[in-house]
């Protein structure tokens, strides 16, 4: 056994470490398990709504006038949209680069450390309960085709799923739509119902975003909506009353 390849560990420990690497590559950049443009949309919508509400509360405490308040928030909404969109694209490309590097690394290992890869396969499939002749046959078949072996190693060793990610630009478009939608809704309601509207629309956006995430993740929608609104309420309230206590 090459200790260079396994870094002094056995094949099973090596596989577990690789799996962790793979999972870190897979982990969603927005903090939720649901990847893609829909997640980016829901997340950008919630964050933009929340930030605009917080800014509205702070600006009110600083005695900014009604029209000035509207202009200030509109001016703040524009960079917020650009920031959310750009950041989403940036994180998407960063993840894609990481995934490509992992594939390249695994391909190199398959080409240059075939014996160790074989050991890894034996450990992997032994761990799944295969043994004896059947195990040997499985390993032989997989080792015979490098492309298939690479796919198996990515999926089984690193826990990566192929063809599961959206292009960073598509993901960023989701974020662009989400933050723009939140900003337009917020500014429109601020114009129509300046006293209570911002609260209603923000909690509505949070509830909508929470419901979308819960729906796609197959989680309980009521829990997601209530927790999203409760956390936003607590955060905004904390910011508002702290500032009020100070000024």
């Amino acid at each position, binding site marked *: 056994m090459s200790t260079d390849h396994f870094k002094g560990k056995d094949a099973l420990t090596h596989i577990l470490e690789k799996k962790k690497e793979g999972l870190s590559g897979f982990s969603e950049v927005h903090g939720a398990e649901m990847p893609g443009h829909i997640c980016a949309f829901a997340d950008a919508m919630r964050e933009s709504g929340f930030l605009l509400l917080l800014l509205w509360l702070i600006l009110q405490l600083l005695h900014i006038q009604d029209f000035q308040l509207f202009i200030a928030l509109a001016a703040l909404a524009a960079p917020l949209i650009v920031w959310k969109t750009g950041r989403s694209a940036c994180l998407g490309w960063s993840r894609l680069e990481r995934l490509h590097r992992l594939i390249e690394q695994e391909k190199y290992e398959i080409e240059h450390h075939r014996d160790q890869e074989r050991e890894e396969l034996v450990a992997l499939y032994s*761990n799944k309960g295969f043994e004896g002749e059947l195990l040997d046959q499985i390993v032989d078949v997989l080792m015979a085709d490098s492309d298939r072996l690479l796919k198996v190693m990515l999926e089984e060793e690193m826990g990566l799923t192929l063809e599961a990610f959206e292009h960073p630009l598509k993901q960023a478009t989701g974020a662009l739509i989400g933050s723009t939608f939140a900003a337009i809704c917020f500014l429109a309601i601020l114009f129509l119902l300046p006293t209570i509207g911002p609260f209603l629309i923000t909690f509505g956006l949070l509830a909508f975003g929470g419901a979308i995430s819960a729906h796609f993740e197959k989680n309980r929608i009521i829990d997601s909506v209530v927790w999203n609104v409760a956390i936003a*309420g607590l955060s905004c*309230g904390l910011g508002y009353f702290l500032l009020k*206590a100070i000024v």
Partner: protein
Amino acid sequence: MNFHLFPAIRGNVEIFDEFFSSNMDETISPFLTPSSRRWGKHLPLKATLIAAFFLILSFILSNPSLVAICLLFSYFFAGTHALIAAIDDLLNLEINIDILMTLSAFLSFLIGSGKEGALLLVLFALSGAIDERVRKKANHNLRALKALAPTKAYVLQKDQSLALYSVRAIKPGDQIYIRAGDIIPLDGEVVSGASSINLVHLTGENQPQSVDAGSEVFSGSTNIDGPLVVKVSHTSSDSTIARIIQMVAAAREMKPRMARFIDTFSSRYAKGVILFAFLFALAAPLVFQMDYLGPEGSFYRAIAVLIAASPCALVIAIPISYLSSIGACAKQGILLKGGSVLDALLKCRIFAFDKTGTLTEGNLRLTQVDAFGQTYDETQIFALASALERGAHHPIAEAICRAATDKKIAPLPLEEHKMVAGYGMQAQFEDKRLSIGNRAWILPKLTRPPANEILQKLDEVEKNGEVHTLFLFEDRLYLFTFEDIVREGIQKTLTTLKDRYGLELVMLTGDHEASAQRIAQQVGLTRYFSNLRPADKLDHITELAKKENLVMVGDGINDAPALARATVGISMGKEGAQSAIDASDVVLLQDRVDQLGWLLEKAHRTGHIVRQNIGLSLLAITFASTAALAGFIPLWLAVILHEGSTVIVALNALRLLKR
């Protein structure tokens, strides 16, 4: 033999089994690191305590902004779950106390009574957290039982090697290998090997049985001293231990719902109050000269009624009364799993007792050594017998060693000391043979056939179901007989239960008829049932429960289904099996059965104070809400009346803390 075992797989599967049997409790989630799992323990209680802390802080602070921050945190920690539960109930078209309390609490924030609303939520969350703990304890019961049943077994392969399989994958006809000291994982018939097995988990009687080829063995029993190869006769889902688990689960489902005032009353009360407040808010301005909005308006008064009618005192009156009693009982070494057990105790007219470990101490005591008419040197016999039995994990061996120690007799050094699995022990002492074990193994060792007198005596002992063993030294035979010891003072306790409270007392045991009769006579019981397996005990308890509510007092795993099925199950905490403790509602931590009289007295007193508190709470609610509705008193006074009644019932309940 070769063992094929993959540690990583084994570890994960055990975690999954435990996780799923706990209804996916996050405190044992396989996705969390083991060190971080404890963060999820008692979350509702922790959240309630944090909410209570911020609420207290809001009363102390004077800056309105800081008070508002504290109230926000209090609402967040105590109210979020309540809000989710209320929305769930509403979606299920269910109007209940959850909705009334949550609605009142959040509406009170809107009309500027945030502290009262937060208080309502904290009290409600506290009550919920206590309920949650009781429910989790009940779930733990089945987990403990499942932990007893092995999840894996070594299956004998065609090439005579061994492979570790999940018991769920083992089919009838497969042969499994059971090591000495292991718990038998599946029911079956011994194919090869000889050993003693302890059926204490199944029958409650701590008396091992010898098994060899052809003997039937049951899952859940312990293989004591020799390896066995067993041909499996039932699948894991149909095994003896699985049936016990199913019985406990089913018995818990069948358990009569304990009397809880809030459960029966809350739904109608909540519907009535919400409907009334809603109608009042809409209709009052049409009938009376009143506005919809403003401090004198119908909406404001409707909200005031909702707050005044929130059963804050009711919610706290009952839990605090029971908590006080639970605390008082804990000081006496009696653990109550939930206060409503005390209610249920009052309704019981029958007390059923297990024999071994409950009415008796559960340990064997050597009662007699019969030398069949020969004179013998007691010191030598005890020194040799205890030397033979030293180190054996067998109740009979332990009783002999204990008897020798009591007599201050030291064991003698032996040679060629060895155990014959399933039969007994043998050794040499100064070139003389000595052995101890069962009749079938000892009698053929005699150089001449045993006298008729000896055979008659052995037949008699066996017929009476007395625990015994034979000791052979050279060619002289000694019969050791044992008995279980009756607990000290048990007769007086039973007489008190019978005479003072007029209870009917019954004994249920898996022991022989003769042994059961002897113990029943000693403790003064006239009604008893013997030769009962766990299923039989459960049947008897079910039959008795059809006539009256009853209490079951027991200690063994075999008692677990009956303890769960009884109206109230009481177990022994010191010597009792974990599954019995989990299945019961009351645990006597010091195994003092004589505390049953005190417990009954406490139950009577608790019932009395709970009734007082309910009356007081209802009176306060009725008065405050009627006055608020009519506009006779302002909202702040309604709130003071409301909270005042809460404090009074809490203080009244605290009286139960006294012994």
